[in-house]
Structure formats: structure tokens, C-alpha cells
């Protein structure tokens, strides 16, 4: 049993390693192109844990935030968006290649978060608005 289980992380790693190779050439199976997080940032949990459990973390945290008023805790959707927003769109789910959208489209899992929450990054939204205002004659 243990021997079988020990394959699991290797398998998962292999799957996501091929995802990284997508840019090098056409692979046998289609894989999501995952955009890197903002440079110089560290995730709140290891990548393997986040890949598997991010939805659980966010779900537990949301009840504490909405009902208990506890904000700024370890797992926060705003925190995710700030680091993972695309450099191009400033968003995690506006364009098909954005961080959340690319993987969720690949896994065929609907994201409901952004029906209500904004997928756009806070700081960059402000910066984009400022640059747009400056760009106007």
C-alpha cells in the first residue's frame, strides 16, 4: 500500500512538470499554461498543498471573515489575487490565460468566486486607472 501511495506525489509532480514544458513544444496531451506569481512573493503554503486544497482554505476562511469579521488571516482571496493577477490583464480570471481561469478551464471546474468578488488586483487596478487617466489628452 505504501509503495503504491509513494507514487502519487511523483505522479502529480510529473503531471505539473509537463505543464511547465508546454512552452517548449507541443506535448502529447494539452496542459494549462500557468502564469508565474508576482516576482519576489512567497505563497502562504507549498505549491502541492495549494493545488490540492486552495478551495478548502478559502471556504473555511470565508466564514470566519463574513460572520466573525476576522480579516487579514493567512488565506485570503484578495491576497491570492494580489500575487497571481496576470501582468497583462491585472486579473486572475478575466482572460482565458489568467492564473485561475487557465487551470479551471483545463480541469473543467466552474469558478463561482468571481461572480461576486472582483478578479482584479487592488494595487494594479489603481495603477491602471491612473495610467489611463494620464494617457488621456
Amino acid at each position, binding site marked *: 500500500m505504501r509503495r503504491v501511495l*509513494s507514487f502519487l506525489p511523483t505522479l502529480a509532480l510529473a503531471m505539473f512538470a509537463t505543464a511547465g514544458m508546454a512552452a517548449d513544444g507541443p506535448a502529447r496531451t494539452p496542459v494549462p499554461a500557468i502564469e508565474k506569481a508576482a516576482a519576489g512573493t512567497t505563497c502562504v503554503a507549498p505549491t502541492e498543498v495549494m493545488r490540492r486544497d486552495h478551495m*478548502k482554505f478559502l471556504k473555511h476562511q470565508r466564514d470566519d471573515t463574513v460572520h466573525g469579521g*476576522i480579516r487579514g*488571516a493567512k488565506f485570503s482571496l484578495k491576497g491570492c489575487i494580489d500575487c497571481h493577477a496576470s501582468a497583462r490583464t491585472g486579473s486572475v480570471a478575466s482572460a482565458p490565460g489568467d492564473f485561475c481561469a487557465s487551470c479551471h478551464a483545463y480541469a473543467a471546474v466552474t469558478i463561482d468566486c468571481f461572480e*461576486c468578488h472582483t478578479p482584479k488586483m487592488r494595487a494594479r487596478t489603481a495603477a491602471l486607472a491612473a495610467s489611463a487617466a494620464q494617457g488621456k489628452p
Partner: protein
Amino acid sequence: MNTPGTPSRPSRRAFLGAAAATGATGAVLLAPGIQLVEVAQAAAPNAASAGGPGATALPGANPRVRWGLLIDTTKCAPGCTDCVSACRTEHGLPEPKRRTDVQWIRKIEIKAIDTGRQGSLPVMCQHCAKPPCVDVCPTGASFKRADGVVLVDRHLCIGCRYCMMACPYKARSFVHEPVTDQKPDAPRGMGCVESCTLCVHRIDAGHMAGGGSTACAEACTKAGHGAILFGDLNDPHSEISRRVKEIRSTVLRADLRVEPGVHYLGL
């Protein structure tokens, strides 16, 4: 129970207990690739609020506090809608075009029939101590926080609009259209009921301790009217509770005994 004579094997209870104890620092590795995340999370539900390791969380809703508003209708200028537009800007609400569009705060013009006195006042969610909207909500989406703020949890709201019928102040609105470009602090979407949140994101960020206020009160002060005062009704030293103690204030529809947190002067 371990029977005497058996070799000491850790019981399931002891194992899970130990797992839960170490859970505060992260997930527990049961076997390669399998982690006991649920146990880890169950062990530390309040680690954030208790200032657990690595937590930078703010403490959350304080049950000793009762947030409220005192609205002086003698200072409220007829025709002025600064509080309404400030609320709209703060929460990213659209300009209302139809009768069914959302409004978290609205201005009402009043006239006393006997004396002819005219005035105006803003009406928003009254943040009742005994909120009828919470009583009728079938899913528990409508709830009252520990500090007296009445909110809608949009994760649970099914959009039945029962709370809108129950509210005697017409304070709640239903979002009929898809929403885009929400503010990060004010998530909102189609199919849910919503109302004034008493700027709960400001409360939770600790702005109120530094003399901060709600968006409407801030705008009213900025416009030079100073008709809206925000504060803690439970704190005997706060300005709002001192003024409520000195001057007779009224609440809207006191006969319903829902004990609103919004008080009015000069009605």
C-alpha cells in the same frame, strides 16, 4: 481500551489527538501524498483570532461593541444626496435607473402635516438588535454579527427575497442584473439580496478606533452638515452614546420593538 498484555500500539484516538496537536503548524502527513488537512484545520479554528503562530489577522467582531448611527434631521439638508453618492462610490454601486435597482441608503423628504415643518433624512439598514430579516431567512444568510452589524452572507443567500418583505424599513435590495467591476472590499453579484453593511470592511480594518467613520458619515461631515454620527452605542465615553443620553432621540417604527441601531434626532 487497550487490554493488558497486548503490545503498546497507539490507539486511533491517541494518534488523531497527536495529529491535531501538531496541526497548528500545518497539515499532517499521514502517508506520502495523503495529508490530514481537516484535522489540522479543526485544531486551529481560532488560531488567527487568538494570535496564533504566523497570524497577522485582526481580532474580528467585538461582542462588547454595538455599532450605530445618530442622524440629526435638523442638520440634514433637503436635496443633498452626498451620503447616497458616497455610499455608491465606496461600494461600487451603479447609478439607479429603475425602481428595482439597488439602493443601500436613500433620502426621504418629510413634512409634518400639523406644523408644516419640512425636512429630510437618510434611511438605510437600521441594524436592528432583533432583526426581522434574520428571523425569516430560510438559509441563515441573513445574520447579525457580534458587534450588532446586520449582514447578508452571499455565499448562503439563495435570493428568495423573504428578508425584503420582512424588513419594515425597505432597506434591502435585490440584484437583478449581472455585476462587473466590484470593489475588492464590497463583493456583490446577481441573485443576492444586499443592504447597508455599516462599512463593515472599515470596521474590521480597525479604522473606527482611529476616529474613522462610515462613508456616508464622512461625506456628510465633509459637506459641512455633520448630520450623521457613527459610533459605539455601548461605549459610555463615545460621542454617540453621550448625545443619545443627553438628547431624546427616536428610532423609526419604535412600535415594532426591533431595537434599531440607527437613532434619529428632530423627527
